[in-house]
């Protein structure tokens, strides 16, 4: 789950990373009582979770006197369709230089990896592309270490100021303590008053949300959240063929096959292993509840999935749309008989099921 800038900064601050003085407001008028704390210029920042926020006009640098107006503007200014629920107002720092630093997990080496660039504040992919390997330095190290070893820190920093070292080390601590997949400061700035994280980005591992005290994953739509509560993996798409499968790979492959035959899937739903009557019923109803779904494909394969249970779940759901099923597993014959008796269609291969569904969705 992605955190908003002000939430990430709170975690950074708790891990010893200096951040600019600032306040989080939920309405423009709230800012009035905080203005005395600022001198001269302030930075007013829309708290939406999208990249390129600055370029899109979501960050306004302004005189203190105009800050409330700027906040009022941002509260009703959509960025990539998102309206902020909160705005962060910060002191404007006297910046000398901007750097880039991030820590992420490298799948290939199975280690934390630090990325550092001497030019921050801009699109980092652009720096990597135009500046060559020296412009974006990469250093990985053992996850069993509790801090970044000195020799690696020297390698990361090169000729950049040594004061950045402790901040990067604290970023690694924040990265570990918050179960982050990504911890990024762009820009990390040097000023006459020291080093500051001018921006902050944190993505928390969904598998660690409970441990991090986060109860609801905000990245999900309401239907996606309902699916998660039922133990399904679910993604909303834009077509008219509902899809229910077991296992991420098989479900993805079913979606791909729909595209292969020029159909459009409405969703991805993985019911998980060993799904019984109740779970199947819930899954079918959830998918049927999407407004555009005309037909539903159920593709279940597994040693422990009982086909008679699945058939009962489909029948229990009692939905209006046509359900086309492909089942392989225990009690296959009983499942087929139950579905046939209740007028449901069952085919033997995923290709047949998908072709049939594409035909019906187009009709």
């Amino acid at each position, binding site marked *: 789950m992605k955190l908003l800038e002000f939430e990430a900064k709170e975690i950074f601050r708790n891990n010893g990373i200096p951040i600019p003085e600032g306040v989080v407001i939920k309405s423009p008028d709230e800012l009035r009582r905080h203005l005395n704390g600022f001198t001269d210029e302030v930075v007013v920042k829309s708290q939406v979770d999208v990249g390129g926020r600055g370029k899109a006009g979501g960050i306004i640098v302004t005189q203190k006197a105009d800050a409330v107006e700027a906040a009022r503007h941002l509260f009703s200014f959509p960025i990539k369709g998102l309206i902020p629920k909160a705005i962060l107002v910060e002191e404007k720092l006297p910046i000398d230089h901007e750097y880039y630093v991030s820590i992420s*997990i490298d799948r*290939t080496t199975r280690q934390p990896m630090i990325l550092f660039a001497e030019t921050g504040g801009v699109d980092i992919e652009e720096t990597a592309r135009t500046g060559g390997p020296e412009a974006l330095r990469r250093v990985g190290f053992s996850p069993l270490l509790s801090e970044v070893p000195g020799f690696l820190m020297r390698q990361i920093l090169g000729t950049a100021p040594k004061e950045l070292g402790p901040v990067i080390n604290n970023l690694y601590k924040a990265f570990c303590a918050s179960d982050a997949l990504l911890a990024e400061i762009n820009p990390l700035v040097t000023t006459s008053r020291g080093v500051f994280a001018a921006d902050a980005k944190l993505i928390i*591992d969904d598998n660690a949300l*409970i441990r991090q005290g986060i109860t609801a994953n905000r990245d999900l739509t309401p239907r996606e959240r309902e699916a998660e509560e039922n133990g399904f993996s679910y993604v909303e798409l834009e077509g008219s063929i509902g899809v229910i*499968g077991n296992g991420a*790979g098989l479900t993805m492959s079913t979606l791909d096959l729909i595209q292969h035959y020029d159909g459009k899937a409405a969703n991805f739903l993985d019911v998980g292993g060993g799904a019984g009557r109740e779970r199947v019923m819930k899954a079918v109803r959830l998918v049927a509840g999407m407004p555009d779904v005309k037909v539903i494909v159920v593709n279940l394969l597994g040693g422990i999935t009982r086909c008679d249970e699945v058939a009962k779940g489909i029948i229990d759901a009692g939905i209006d749309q046509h359900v086309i099923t492909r089942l392989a597993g225990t009690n296959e014959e009983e499942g087929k008989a139950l579905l046939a008796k209740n007028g449901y269609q069952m085919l033997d*291969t995923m290709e047949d099921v998908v072709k049939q569904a594409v035909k019906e969705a187009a009709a």
Partner: protein
Amino acid sequence: MIYGDHTTGIIVQGATGNQGAFHINLMNQYAKETGGRGVVAGVTPGKGGQKVHGVPVYNSVREAMAENDASTSVLFVPGFAAGDSIMEAASAGIELITAITEGIPVHDTMRALAFARMEGCTVIGPNCPGTLSPGELKLGIMPPHLAMPGNVGIISRSGTLTYEVINELTRAGIGQSTVVGIGGDPVIGQTFTDVLERFEADAQTKAVVLIGEVGGNLEEEGATSTDLPLVTYIAGISAPPEKRMGHAGAIIEGGEGDAVSKIARLRKLGIPVAGKPSDIPALVRELL
């Protein structure tokens, strides 16, 4: 038989939970059919002295190993405790851990894998269905009856999609040497590259089917690492960017790891890529 054979003794960690108990039974049924030793001991801290489907349960891996001849463990321990259990098994001298558990925080996985490597222990998974050498050994939860012995290896990031491919191959009369589910998480122990190295040293395996999906670039890394004849399939050509497709690792991030560019890179290496699972048997037959 790249991870053991019918003489391999298995310890199940997380033996008294629903999943653990259920699969002890299934693994031992398969062992009985194939003349294997199967699961010889279970481990659940605090539940030592119990029995699960006739298998004795111990409080620690060390105790289980002291009283039983076993070199490999299969792990069903829940997410937040699984990292610790991997380290326990590695420290006790287990040579191969198959981590079935889904939902382990990735920081825990990273540390546990680094620790296991220091102890010289190999880890398959996590978030995987395990391995199956038809007629010899089942470590994990794969349904064995779709498979038949033969000389094609399978390596996959997925579970049920692998069963689909096993099913297609068996129906086409093509048997399998060992089927390895390496797991759907972003950080996993054995990668395509590691498993391919074992297949190269395995006299039984003549060709390998590599089943990948969106996210990362382990498929391309594996494909460039080997001289073995390969057929590949990549799931997720219809997957939207920045959405996690069921597996924690199945996500197109920052414009990287999408199926179209994976497939393009594999084709550039001259490796056949199946357009759909049912095309795999014909492509494999061309290699044999």
